[in-house]
């Protein structure tokens, strides 16, 4: 049984005309066939050359013929299942479903000063537990909740993160790639009898380095789902225009899709849009800018046209604290993904950029996700909901609808009742000590931490997980990526919780 997620019951928002879509598509085909992409991977070049691409071995450049590109787009399934540790939490990506994931943050924050600092192992595991509890959060994406925790060497960050999510949560997981960590992630998934969705990440413009392509081969050959990431910075690694960065982003993600669909046709593939505008005067990333919302809406529309599920990766506010600014910046992203037919996006817990995350923020974001999800359900229009007989029976003033069976039956279904918001009247609010959403969220977070017990791994799964982790630790130590000092600190961190 798949976790339902949110379902959009009306047509999506279309901000591009048919002609606009055609222009972007044509631009993408032209760049793929004439300029091509750089793929630093001999085996990939062999595979693609055999499939009809033109390959230049000196520059590692591969030009892709339009017919092959269009054929590979058709090979990707428009909708696919992704199995979770708890089968009830499995997903059906694509179509008119929308799923939310947590927004990653490198560090946690101090809730009084809002300053970032690395999370401890306990904080990491607790944050996963909070995310496991929140029902509007449907799966875990890479680097969530934090990039790692104090004491973990960088090369083990992703694997320790995966382990925490498997131990303290039962939802579907996406894993990144770093120093070929995806190989161990796939081993963990196979040993535990679950699936992971892996990633293939471009280095814009138009470039894939060896580790990304290695990940593509490992995942496709293991039969895992693949998420392809383009992350252009508009004005730096992509044109400053929305249309131009759409073309270049599509070239990047579709070129890897061609590779994956050539390695193993039918591979479950998801395309990720993480376009980031930049303030070209200061060089600062323009987190929170509405250009991102326009970009994702257009990207989602084009990918719906192709029939490929999407992930909108830009859930990141420019504000450094949960305040008015961060709320509108997050809300814009969530509602535009929902309305424009995106399949999934990060939302919960991200505080600033990709740099900080907090479980308190995740609890607050649960209500944004709930509102967006309720919106997508739309409204019932039938004799009972139109209530014509009732309107006529009640008539003008002093008629009213209070106390009627129809009101009792329908009112809750038509609304979204938030968990952590101030919905009191003024007098009640004054009486409550002027509590705010942050106060309610803190209470809710503490209650979740005190009571939520995630679905445990079986003893065998726990042993298998730990065994692969130990293999990975040994591998990276042998490869010189974990020094003795780092290993000592790492072991201490592991023993801390």
């Amino acid at each position, binding site marked *: 049984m798949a976790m339902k997620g949110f379902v959009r019951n009306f047509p999506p928002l279309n901000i591009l005309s048919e002609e606009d879509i055609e222009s972007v598509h044509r631009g993408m085909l032209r760049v793929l066939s004439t300029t091509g992409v750089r793929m630093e991977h001999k085996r990939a070049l062999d595979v693609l050359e055999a499939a009809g691409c033109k390959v230049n071995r000196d520059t590692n450049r591969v030009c892709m013929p339009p017919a092959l590109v269009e054929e590979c787009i058709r090979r990707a399934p428009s909708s696919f299942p992704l199995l979770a540790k708890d089968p009830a939490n499995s997903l059906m990506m694509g179509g008119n479903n929308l799923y939310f994931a947590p927004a990653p943050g490198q560090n946690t924050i101090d809730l009084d000063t809002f300053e970032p600092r690395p999370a401890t192992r306990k904080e990491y595991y607790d944050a996963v537990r909070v995310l496991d509890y929140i029902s509007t959060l449907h799966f875990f994406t890479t680097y969530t909740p934090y990039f790692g925790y104090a004491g973990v060497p960088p090369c083990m960050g992703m694997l320790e993160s995966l382990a925490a999510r498997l131990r303290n949560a039962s939802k579907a997981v996406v894993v990144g790639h770093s120093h070929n960590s995806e190989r161990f992630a796939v081993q963990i998934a196979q040993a535990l009898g679950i699936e992971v969705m892996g990633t293939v990440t471009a280095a814009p413009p138009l470039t894939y380095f060896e580790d990304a392509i290695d990940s593509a081969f490992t995942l496709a050959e293991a039969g895992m789902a693949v998420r392809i990431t383009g992350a252009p910075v508009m004005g730096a690694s992509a044109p400053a225009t929305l249309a131009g960065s759409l073309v270049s982003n599509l070239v990047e993600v579709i070129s890897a899709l061609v590779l994956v669909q050539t390695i193993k046709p039918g591979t479950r593939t998801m395309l990720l849009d993480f376009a980031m505008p930049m303030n*070209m005067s200061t060089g600062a990333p323009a987190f929170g800018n509405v250009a991102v919302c326009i970009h994702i809406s257009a990207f989602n529309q084009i990918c719906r046209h192709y029939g490929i599920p999407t992930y909108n990766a830009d859930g990141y506010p420019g504000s450094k604290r949960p305040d008015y600014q961060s709320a509108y910046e997050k809300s814009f992203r969530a509602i*535009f993904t929902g309305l424009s037919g995106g399949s999934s996006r990060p939302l919960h817990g991200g505080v600033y950029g990709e740099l900080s995350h907090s479980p308190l923020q995740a609890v607050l974001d649960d209500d944004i996700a709930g509102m967006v999800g309720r919106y997508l359900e739309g409204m019932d229009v039938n004799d009972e909901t139109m209530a014509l007989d009732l309107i006529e029976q009640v008539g003008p003033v002093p008629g009213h609808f209070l106390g009627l069976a129809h009101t009792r039956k329908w009112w809750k279904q038509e609304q979204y009742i938030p968990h952590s918001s101030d919905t009191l009247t003024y007098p009640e609010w004054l009486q409550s000590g002027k509590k705010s959403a942050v106060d309610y969220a803190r209470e809710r977070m503490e209650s979740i931490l005190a009571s939520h017990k995630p679905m445990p791994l079986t003893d065998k799964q726990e042993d298998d997980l730990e065994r692969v982790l130990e293999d990975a630790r040994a591998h990276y130590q042998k490869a010189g990526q974990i020094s003795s000092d780092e290993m000592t600190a790492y072991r201490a961190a592991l023993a801390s919780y």
Partner: protein
Amino acid sequence: MALNAYTRRFPALEILNEEQLEQIHQGMLRVLWTTGVHMEHRGALETLERNGCVVDYDDWRVRFPPGLVEECIRRCPSSFQVKTRDPSRSVTLGGNGLHVLPFPGHHTIDLDTYEPRVPTRKEFYDGVKVLDALPSVHGLWSYTPYFGFEGVPPSMCLLESMAGKIRNSGKFLTEGYSKGSEEFCIRMAQAVDAELCVPCLLSPPLTYYGDAIGAALHGADAGFPVRISEGAVYGGTAPASIAGALVSACANLVAPVVLLQVHKPGTRIFLHDFTFPQNMTTGAPGFGNIAIGLHAAAFNQIFRRYGIPIGNGAAVPASKRIDFQSGYERAINATIFALSGANFILMHGGVAAELTHHPLQAILDDDICGMLGRFLEGIDVSEDSLAVDLIEEVGPVPGHFLNKKHTRQWWKHEQNHPHAADKLTYPEWEKVGRKGCMDYAKERLEDILTNYAPPPLTASQEEEIERILEEARAYYKKEGLITSDEMAVYRQGMRSSRYPYE
């Protein structure tokens, strides 16, 4: 010349299918014909009867034949201009234009405690000045920024509010009515060569009292546009189901449309959806609830089909503070209003429900408007913006776009540029003392109050406004609506050497 509204350059969001639209239209026609509407205005009933409606004078009930309803809907202009005191700020309501207006609050708030209190005259006038200065405020709504100010007797609140807006702003105006105040408001607008949008406010379900109908007819007779406002509560004064609340809103709003279009065909009308749900367990109004966005999008879709300009008023938070909750409550519903084709939205400055307003909030909301406005413009897809030649010229890594003419030419256009948002990196943020959007908004507020001057009235316009106010004061005193004690306090507030501005 007219003020540039935001323009939506792609099809509006539609959440109903054709069949659902038809069902709701048919439901509205049925309610208007079989149940009808209570209108406590003899002249209106006589006019409607002459035009084919069935009238029951004993219980003020009027039933509207479907043919007449549809004919009157067709008579409404789908888009029209409204004249303003400052001609460069006139507005054209309708079509794919979006205007944003402030949201009223009964009181101002203390920014440290968030407790409400009555504003002073100066705070009221400063509040208007800030709204006039913000480019994303396209006009001024009734009861804005506050319901009145210290010392003003209730019967004079709307008139003092109107005067405050005329003196401190050249933008589009609509003002409420109470005890015949619309007549004085109309004269004030005429004195500055502006048009006033006179409201006609429903008392749901299906009821209009005499003052509402009187105000609408006065406005139409003066040749001014009329706005009809619906403020039903689902589960209280409308069905708890959104589809039922929609049928009821359509019947409520279209009844005076018929009256106005038979009274004076072609009258410029715009409709205002200010419905919201109720928590039926606690009785608290469901401000900030997503049901508002569902109702509004469907409402906008129905009236775009009818070709009558529309707007949504309920993007107002339930939170009592300016915080994370109020940010998402406002942003989500306002976005839905804008995408579904609203011609106006009430937004700036409203803090909690209709109870509090603050200019600092208005400054924060200016940035939400900037985002919405930029989104509505959509994407330019042209040879230049697609930049295929440039992508090919730059090629793979280590190619980049940083120093390209194309980047310099386009980057600003593609983004929104907030005034009061924290856009710094972490190290920069630490260096400036961890400033947040509230700090930036405070700085902008102080800057506007220090440096901005609204377009002034001429001396004769000032005199005429004060003369009309004096006439109204005398009228309401004579009517017994201002006691001598109230008048003494009221006059006390007019003794400043900088009266009327402080």
